[in-house]
């Protein structure tokens, strides 16, 4: 089976910072990684390769020459071939121009290398842009079936079909799709493998081929790069900090804080959970929604509600809720 994985090299957003004055991304010195969702896409392709002997996994990326490092990482995990789509003319592209360029490169590979890709894998979305558009747009451009947000996948080569479990915001959808197919992978799809020694050696020695504008004479130049990108970014800004982080040393303290904060925001919702020290717990029989006028119902409920002595003992030591209630009164207008 011919399998293709589209990956993107992204800045490691766990280290990302915005320039507070210009609001631009500070890219210098930022380590680059393979987009995390793309690692799941690659793993999905490698799993299909493991399932069907003789399969071949090609990895494709579009970006500057430094993106070779990301492709090499994919090779060290077990991909067979890597192609970089790179040209200054492709720079500044939005998702539409990017997916057109990538789709053109895929057509180019299919034609020149005589490979008909049966499944194309993409990550659900990239952590730098979060658009989740490039995968579906590639499928549209190539006129093939797509199954996005895949969290389970099974491929049947003989029947030329795949069954994909798709993740929705409030549920799952299981679809059967004919091949060729484009899948976008979620993190739930699989657990990426570790690089192997021999594949790492292979990755070190591999010569990554480049596809440039000149390699694709049929490409429509009005649809690539900055000129082919209808998207205009009006403003990028950092949302203001919403609050301070406070480290608490114990669970007890944490519980108090949670109660305090919650109590402060919506006291009526939590009032019934707080057990003040001085109020006898046993007498609170009224808030049970019992019709007190009905003597039968009342008798029954009183018996079930009034706790034994032991029960009272159990509740009494649990006084931090009461303390929290007191301190909540003191610290009005907390820092959130």
């Amino acid at each position, binding site marked *: 089976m011919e399998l293709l994985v589209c990956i993107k090299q992204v800045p490691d957003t766990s280290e990302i910072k915005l320039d507070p004055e210009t609001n631009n991304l500070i890219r210098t010195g930022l380590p680059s990684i393979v987009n995390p969702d793309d690692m799941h896409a690659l793993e999905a392709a490698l799993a299909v390769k493991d399932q069907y002997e003789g399969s071949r996994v090609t990895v494709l990326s579009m970006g500057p020459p430094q993106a070779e490092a990301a492709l090499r990482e994919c090779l*060290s995990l077990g991909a067979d071939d890597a192609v970089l789509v790179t040209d200054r003319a492709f720079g500044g592209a939005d998702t539409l121009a990017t997916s057109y360029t990538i789709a053109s490169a895929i057509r180019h590979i299919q034609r020149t290398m005589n490979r008909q890709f049966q499944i194309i894998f993409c990550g659900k979305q990239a952590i730098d842009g979060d658009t989740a558009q490039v995968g579906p747009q590639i499928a549209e451009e190539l006129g093939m079936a797509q199954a996005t947000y895949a969290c389970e996948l099974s491929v049947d080569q003989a029947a030329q079909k795949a069954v994909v479990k798709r993740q929705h915001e409030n549920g799952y959808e299981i679809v059967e799709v004919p091949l060729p197919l484009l899948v976008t992978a979620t993190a739930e799809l699989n657990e990426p493998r*570790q*690089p*192997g*020694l*021999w*594949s*790492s*050696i*292979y990755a*070190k*020695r*591999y010569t990554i081929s480049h596809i440039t504008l000149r390699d694709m004479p049929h490409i429509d130049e009005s649809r690539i790069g900055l000129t082919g990108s209808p998207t205009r970014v009006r403003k990028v800004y950092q949302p203001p900090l919403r609050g301070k982080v406070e480290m608490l040393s114990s669970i007890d303290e944490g519980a108090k804080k949670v109660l305090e904060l919650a109590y402060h925001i919506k006291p009526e919702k939590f009032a019934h959970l707080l057990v003040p020290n001085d109020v006898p717990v046993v007498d609170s029989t009224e808030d049970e929604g019992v019709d007190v006028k009905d003597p039968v119902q009342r008798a029954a409920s009183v018996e079930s509600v009034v706790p034994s002595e032991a029960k009272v003992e159990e509740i009494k030591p649990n006084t931090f809720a009461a303390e929290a209630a007191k301190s909540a009164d003191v610290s009005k207008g907390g820092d959130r």
Partner: protein
Amino acid sequence: MAIDRNETFDVIVVGAGPAGAAAALRLAEQRVKVLLIERGMAPGAKNMMGGRIYTHSLEKLVPDFRDRAPLERKVTKERISIGAGNEMTTIEYSCQDVKENEESYVVLRAKFDKWLAEEAEKKGALLVSNVQVTELITEGEGKNRRVVGVRCHDDEVYAKLVIIAEGANTVLLEEAGLTGPTDPKTMAVGVKEVYKLKKEDLENRLMLSGDEGMAWLTLGDMTDGLLGGGFIYTNKASLSVGMVVGLEDIGSAGKSVDEMLEAFTSHPRIAPLLKNGQLKEHSAHLVPEGGYKAMPKLGGNGYIIVGDAARMCMNLGYTIRGMDLAIESGICAADAVNVALRDENMDRVPKLYEKQIKASWLRHDLKLYKHVPKFLGTNPRIFNEYPTFVNNLMRDVFTVNGDGAVPMMKKIMRRVGDIGLFTLIRDAWKGVRSL
């Protein structure tokens, strides 16, 4: 191009720290087919030390390292401090015109080790990172048992020789039964924090100019009476601050190592130096401290051991060395292999390697200071009573209070009396003799 799993190498080097990278570099220069395997994301990612490398052995390996290596600052100032409570006595020595072969530099391992491994790669070594060697593959039994390759999870690779540069934590050697279990008495744990500072602040606070740097070692009650001490090294625009503590008594200590480090960084003499500093890193690592007597057999059939894995580290209290020894051992290993390959007799490598080590300053230096670890390890007075003694003495010397002056001799003898004249003389004699 396809993967050939039957491909073999002349030499496999396990670990791309300074010892492994030095060996690989030297071998690659002689066109030896060498595979260098590193388990960190990149060489140096898993390595840590206080900060200083004496560069005489590096210069042999990369003569123009001054122009190419990522060096932080050249050490021109040495400081040694003896602390007791809030008191501190400090000796400072500075020298502007250090001879080339006597130079030392502060380096950050994440940058330096990566650079050195890439130098090896440029010479033709095959460097593979992010792959862990999980096992040494051996063949034969008893005397004929021989290391023939390494396993990395499911993958196996074979070579004529394996150079083991796995570092302080000798998991592979111990699991293969090639060395015994490590004696905790001979090991220490190092913890380190890196504080980013404004370059001017750093230079002003320590009175440094340009690329000058400082190595500052401290001794005293910051280790809570345990074997060890604190260190501060100057990077370009940050400080490496940390502490090394003997592993053996760590469990019975009154404070955790982190608490000791916190006490150190908040010490009234240290805290002003770190003011407005931004904590960027926190790391910890094992340190071999046993010296010559803790060294294992340096090799056997099919393998040799270099660097920290061979316990080539020296701590004299005022000088701490490791990287220069590691690089030298890598060079010795490579030279032994080159001779053996020329003679087409790889079985001779362990013998030749031992011979190279003996012929170099390595064995000489390690042997010369072989009594130091024992002296430091069995003499708790050094970390408790003597720091107090020194600081009390200094206080007496500098005190003026209007109660009438005391003759110097009397001041000194009063403090000597706290410890006992004979104990003091005996310890001083033993200490100086071990150095």
